[in-house]
């Protein structure tokens, strides 16, 4: 599915979120440098990885990073 308008995106993203099955949406967007004006997160990428994995451990009840003690 290819979308190029925001309303189309909303419709397809809603389907992706609510329906079972793999959904592949190609979004045709306008070139933008708006992200350069945003305040960047001060969270390091490695920190993001560990935070994500600890979240999975917490919510899935499984040990992923067990450390070496």
């Amino acid at each position: 599915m290819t979308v190029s308008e925001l309303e189309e995106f909303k419709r397809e993203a809603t389907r992706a979120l609510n329906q079972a099955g793999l959904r592949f949406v190609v979004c045709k967007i306008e070139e933008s440098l708006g992200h350069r004006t945003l305040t960047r997160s001060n969270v390091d990428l490695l920190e993001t990885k560990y935070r994500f994995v600890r979240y999975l451990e917490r919510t899935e009840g499984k040990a992923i990073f067990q450390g070496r003690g």
Partner: protein
Amino acid sequence: MIRYACFEWLAPLLTDQLVVTSLSGQRVEWGHLSKRDADLNLGSMGNALAVGIGLALALPHRKVLVFESDGSVLLSLFNLPTLVNLNPQTWRYLSSITKRIAALGSATRVRRREKPIWPQLPEGRALIRW
């Protein structure tokens, strides 16, 4: 259509879905709008889709969203047929695939085992490419 507007609309809707982003502007924009622990902002090209496939296979009960860019997908285009061939459905299926990979030691052989079903997409996960 502006990407930031899409993210701005989408971010408040997410609850426990796992989100994987790749590189550059989309990572900055999504990181600006979403502060969830369930976000994995990789900050690299060519592996978001692969990570998303792995998450979908390992956690078939979780919804996984992958935000990719055109360049990032092109860098590892082989992930697309892999996604279709592995067709993540249940943990049992993953276990079977994993054992076969270990036994054969060749991803090519594994792909031959499965009859390609492209462009029919498998059931189970949601995926969005930018």
